[in-house]
């Protein structure tokens, strides 16, 4: 299982054994990582599973499509590293991935 590290805004780090074939968001929820709300349940429709992907890892997490772009575009804290974790499918290639969580989901 790929190991993925999620770092909370306060610095607390969570390394999880992620299950391939489901989203990073769902993996985080299943492992009770705090800081991801995922109000819409993974429909790319609420923007409350925002993460910042460590720069080296961005290409491996895939493309941002038009809907994700629209949702990310509304966030004042958006950066080039911003992704919605419900739109990142976990695969073996993401073993070692590091993402940081924002101060707030909104």
């Amino acid at each position, binding site marked *: 299982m790929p190991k993925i590290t999620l770092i909370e805004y306060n610095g607390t780090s969570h390394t999880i054994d992620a299950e391939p074939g489901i989203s990073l968001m769902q993996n985080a929820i299943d492992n009770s990582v705090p800081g991801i709300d995922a109000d819409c349940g993974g*429909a790319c*429709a*609420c*923007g409350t599973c925002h993460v910042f992907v460590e720069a080296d890892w961005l290409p491996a997490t895939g493309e941002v499509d038009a809907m994700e772009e*629209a949702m990310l575009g*509304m966030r004042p804290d958006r950066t080039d590293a911003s992704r919605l974790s419900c739109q990142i499918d976990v695969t073996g290639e993401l073993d070692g991935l590091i993402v940081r969580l924002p101060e707030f989901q*909104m």
Partner: protein
Amino acid sequence: MNEAVALPDALTMPLSDIDVSDPRLLEQDAWRPFFARLRKEDPVHFQAASNFGPFWSITRFDDIVAVDSDHEAFSSEPIIFIGDQTEDTKLQSFINMDPPRHDVQRRAVQPVVAPQNLAVMERLIRSRVVDIMENLPTGETFDWVEHVSINLTTQMLATLFDFPFERRSKLTYWSDIAVGTPEISGGQVTHEERLAGLQECLAEFTQLWHQRKEVEGGFDLISLLQRDPETADLVDRPLEYLGNLILLIVGGNDTTRNSASGGVLALNKHPGEYDKLRANPGLIPSMVSEIIRWQTPLAHMRRTATRDLEFRGKQIRKGDKVVMWYLSGNYDDTVIEEADKFIIDRKNPRKHVSFGFGIHRCMGNRLAEMQLRILWEEIMQRFRFVEVMDEPERVQSNFVRGYKTLPVRLHPL
């Protein structure tokens, strides 16, 4: 609509006659069986004749998420409530714009509810809530809507706009008339009253805009609009300036106000949940989400189809009104377990459609949750029981699900 005629029986009437735009459904709190039947038998329902013209109703949770997420097929223009605006007051604001105009205008005002600003606001909100709580009468029945819900949300709005505090009741008035006409929502505000009120609102805020120009560095909504290049000249586009003001006023007013009343009513109707809350006030954040679902302060949002399309087997035509009934989605028990019940420690309380989804999702959702959380934290510090003494009087509307009055009596700790 004839007031004297009783509502039909939702369970036996012909399906094709079910008209959920009838504002009496909310006023009489009679909506449940109508939406339950539609969700089960005809979840994407066409109503050929209503006071608001023909329209589609989207009633299931997942279908609402799908429509709300697809802003290309389902446009927010020209307006997002079921009724159309009359020619002389066609307000424009980012809630009834599609990208790219929507994006630039929303981005201009979003910082007012950004996390840094909310942290500053929390102290202010708490001090005001405490002040309201400490001045409430005990040992007598009074109206919670007026003394708490309206008072709290109006003070908040005045702060967001840096509006003259002593004149803040005007904000509540403008909010109520803006969406309260028969044409817009089946309400009881006359067209003339709305027009006059909106003109007054525009005049006051135009004056405020020019005064604010003289002040540097403010973090209120007007200062933010002035600082953003995309909206710096908004005052020169009066219908757009007024539209965005009304959006922010209604968005920050009706919603939190009616959830602040709804929570009291919900706990009174579910005494076991009130016991849970007394035993564990740590449930307040989870309860706040449940209140927002249970209340669903805005019953619907409307879209307009941009092309002919098929949706769940129905043929929707370009230009058709498509109404997402958030109130129905929030009571869809195929998605939300025991949806009819108010349960303050639900497993997934944030799963509700009250804030909408997609690019028009509620901008002030975190502020709303914070206000309600602080309200309940301070109530529980002081009162063992906020007892509802009589049924509330409800607003006649198909858009705002709200209360005119809620008589209560306080029982201190």
